């Protein structure tokens, strides 16, 4: 029976709460809370992608586009129109949802590789728009001057404050997703993954569920994009390119696609690999990712979150 245990979530939550204090004590990892903000932003995207890919079995290579839509909507509406950033965030999710429906209705009729190709093309088109609509997006130079976030006069203007804000969003998304997985909707999604014919014979509206989960993943990616833009106060298109979509896939493949925990583990790992640990490989970084991915898919088909199961298997013998 699929039951996601509560204890690890509580432990993880406590860890996130006390982590900045720990990092403050150890100079060597003093910059980690800043990295954890990025890890959190990636977690938001991978949680949605995990539900879409790991549970419902629909491959998307266009998640970077939704991430970019959130970031650019927030940037454009705050910089050009001076709207309230929170409002922009909401508008961003609405636009991302609408785009997800428009892209999803035709492409979710496709399966497997074809769906991957359709979303890949979509991601490339959006990337081109970010680059070419110079009047609005600043083109390849990007946009600066994006305001930070504040709530009732409280400014999220330090790393610590933004850290807690981002992780609040991550936990909300995580709990929501876990609840969905353990419900009728979650069962329907997992059923679709295995057999669309049998799912619809059981009364599951397959195309509707696919759209819903695609929209949900787009909303989370868009939120992540808005949080990114308001944190760095600067964005440019290269953040939202095809390689980032692939990197997201690497994250959930490394962490483990069939468990929502895998999304978190993978996002953490890739963040720290790319910002800290793989720095000295410079342009060979991509090759290192390739090797890691290769090793994981061969030896850990269930990703890093599959390790406890393997270890348990050893002890049972």
């Amino acid at each position: 029976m699929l039951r996601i245990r509560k204890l690890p979530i509580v432990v993880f939550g406590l860890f996130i709460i006390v982590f900045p204090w720990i990092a403050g004590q150890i100079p060597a990892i003093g910059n980690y809370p800043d990295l954890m903000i990025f890890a959190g932003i990636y977690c938001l995207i991978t949680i949605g992608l995990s539900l879409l890919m790991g549970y419902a079995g629909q491959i998307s290579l266009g998640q970077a586009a939704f991430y970019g839509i959130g970031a650019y909507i927030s940037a454009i509406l705050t910089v050009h129109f001076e709207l309230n950033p929170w409002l922009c965030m909401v508008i961003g999710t609405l636009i991302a949802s609408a785009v997800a429906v428009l892209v999803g209705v035709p492409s979710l009729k496709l399966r497997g590789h074809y769906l991957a190709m359709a979303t890949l093309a979509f991601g490339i088109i959006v990337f081109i728009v970010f680059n070419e609509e110079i009047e609005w997006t600043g083109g390849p130079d990007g946009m600066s001057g994006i305001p930070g976030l504040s709530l009732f006069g409280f400014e999220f203007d330090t790393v610590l404050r933004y850290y807690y804000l981002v992780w609040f969003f991550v936990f909300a998304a995580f709990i929501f997703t876990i609840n969905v997985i353990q419900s009728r909707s979650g069962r329907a999604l997992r059923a679709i993954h295995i057999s669309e014919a049998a799912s619809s014979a059981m009364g599951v509206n397959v195309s509707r569920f696919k759209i819903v989960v695609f929209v949900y993943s787009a909303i989370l990616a868009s939120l992540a994009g808005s949080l990114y833009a308001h944190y760095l106060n600067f964005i440019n298109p290269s953040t939202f390119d095809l390689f980032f979509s692939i990197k997201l896939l690497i994250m959930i493949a490394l962490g483990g696609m069939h468990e929502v925990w895998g999304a978190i583990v993978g996002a953490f790992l890739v963040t720290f690999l790319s910002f800290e640990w793989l720095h000295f490989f410079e342009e060979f970084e991509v090759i290192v990712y390739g090797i890691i991915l290769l090793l994981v898919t061969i030896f850990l088909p269930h990703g890093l979150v599959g390790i406890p199961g393997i270890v348990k298997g050893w002890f049972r013998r």
Partner: protein
Amino acid sequence: MNETLTEHILEVEEVVMAFGGLMALINLDFQVKKGMIKAIIGPNGAGKTTLFNVITGTFPPTEGAVRFKRQSIETLKAHEIAKLGISRTFQTVELFTNMSVLENVMVGCHTRTRSSFIASGFRLPQVTRKEAQIRSKAMEVLEFIGLTNRSAESADSLPLGDRKILEIGRALATEPELVCLDEPAAGLNETETQAAADLIKRIKEKGITILLVEHDMKVVMDISDEIMVLNYGEKIAEGIPEEIQNNPKVIEAYLGGEENDA
């Protein structure tokens, strides 16, 4: 009002199913009386599974009408037809192999319950309540089909006989009035076949109408009230088991009888 005895739950009228140039079903006409077991037999490629796919909405017929409880269903989608009360099993068992035995049946409860994606995400009180209802209903179904003690096991780990039974259970969880069983005894040994046949009889006792495709003639003759024989997409005979057994056309279709009768 003497209609009750002969009320037709399913009416198939002039149905044609063409895949390009291939005629899988040709002007097929038949009815299924409420509460009975009707078997559809015929050589491989006769169009039996295609007929199931048309009835359950996998694809719409090229021509003709399908009526369930006097309502036209030939243009409806599979999930809408499931909701109206037709369920099915598959010739090649299509269980959700990523789930437990219990969860498979719980997916079957999908169509009789409602709780949205958003309500589930916030785990509203009514969602928790409905989950409990779904679970207890699924357990009832497992008890009916005799798989209670395997409820927590992965559906994938069951032997073929139990997988076939579980698929029938999953179909029952949708609370159907008509169940289409596609070769429930295929690949089963004698004991398993007997268990499947007994289960089908008990489903009939619950008042559920059964449409059965099966190659095991002993099972078909034993449990069917009526039999229809298909050959190359056409109905070549229809009647009670005794009539079918002695029908020369049927014997010819199965044994490839001689063209010119001497």
